[in-house]
């Protein structure tokens, strides 16, 4: 296990993370361009929702990435706490801001989609409410890093926040099955049959890839910034 941790030591990993953003950025621009063309022009309109269905191509990937980031943050925080590895906390912190932005995008685009579909901008529907709660956990996590000075205390608090927050993730996922909500049940399933047509699934997957690349780009920039911050403190101690 120690060998694996050594591979991810900041000193070694910075050689990669400092050079990677420009390639990730180039790839992101290519993928998002294809995704936008597919989502806005080439994909068909829905027989029931007409063109408003196109909002799905930003709403759904944003929600997926936001949930994925929070789950990763929980895993990293817990691993960091168990193995006493500060780098895991640093990675987790670097992921948080893009997770929050994706969460807000999912809420706002969902609200915009709700108006023509349900006739309202907002409803205290189980999925919307649980997504709002996730945003609050993201806020608490980021605020904890800002207000506390003692690193050990920050590690404890942020791990606790992610552990409490992760309880909400399966609630978000299964809220449409457990309760009678305005949201329709999931159309894309890994274990059972996917009910979305391939002409809509393809742009959705392309946009998800683009969003994942963007979150990777922001993560790399944030992580590099955190490492330089540490090195700045190191220069003070010389």
């Amino acid at each position, binding site marked *: 296990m120690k060998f694996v941790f050594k591979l991810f030591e*900041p000193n070694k990993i910075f050689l990669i993370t400092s050079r990677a953003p*420009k390639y990730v*950025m180039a790839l992101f621009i290519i993928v998002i361009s294809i995704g936008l063309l597919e989502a806005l022009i080439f994909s068909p309109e829905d027989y029931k929702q007409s063109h408003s269905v196109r909002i799905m191509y930003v709403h759904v990937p944003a929600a997926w990435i936001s949930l994925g980031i929070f789950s990763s943050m929980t895993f990293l925080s817990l691993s960091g706490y168990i193995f006493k590895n500060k780098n895991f906390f640093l990675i987790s912190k670097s992921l948080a*801001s893009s997770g929050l932005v994706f969460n807000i995008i999912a809420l706002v*685009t969902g609200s915009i989609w709700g108006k023509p579909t349900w006739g309202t901008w907002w409803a205290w529907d189980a999925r919307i409410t649980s997504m709002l709660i996730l945003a609050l956990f993201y806020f608490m996590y980021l605020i904890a890093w800002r207000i506390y000075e003692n690193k050990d205390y920050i590690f404890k608090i942020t791990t606790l926040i992610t552990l409490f927050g992760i309880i909400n993730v399966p609630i978000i996922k299964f809220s449409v099955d457990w309760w009678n909500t305005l949201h329709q049940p999931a159309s894309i399933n890994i274990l059972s049959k996917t009910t979305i047509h391939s002409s809509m699934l393809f742009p959705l997957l392309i946009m998800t890839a683009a969003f994942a690349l963007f979150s990777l780009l922001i993560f790399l920039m944030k992580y590099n910034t955190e490492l*330089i911050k540490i090195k700045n403190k190191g220069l003070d101690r*010389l």
Partner: protein
Amino acid sequence: MINEIINMNGYGLYVWSAFTFTLVSFVSLYIVTKAHYTKEKNKFEVKFGALDPKKAEVARSQVINREILSTTNNI
């Protein structure tokens, strides 16, 4: 054709505002993140420049410090 893309059967306002909000969020997050990165990097360069030659030699012996100094604009 262009009118159809803009209007989208009356749903254009909703669709375009959702996509615009997403792109504006992306650009804002990128700008803020880059500004933080540039600020920390500039701070590092100023501090490094102020070190006396002996300390600078010690600092330069670390790969990560050399990498920070060499990557002038890597994003």
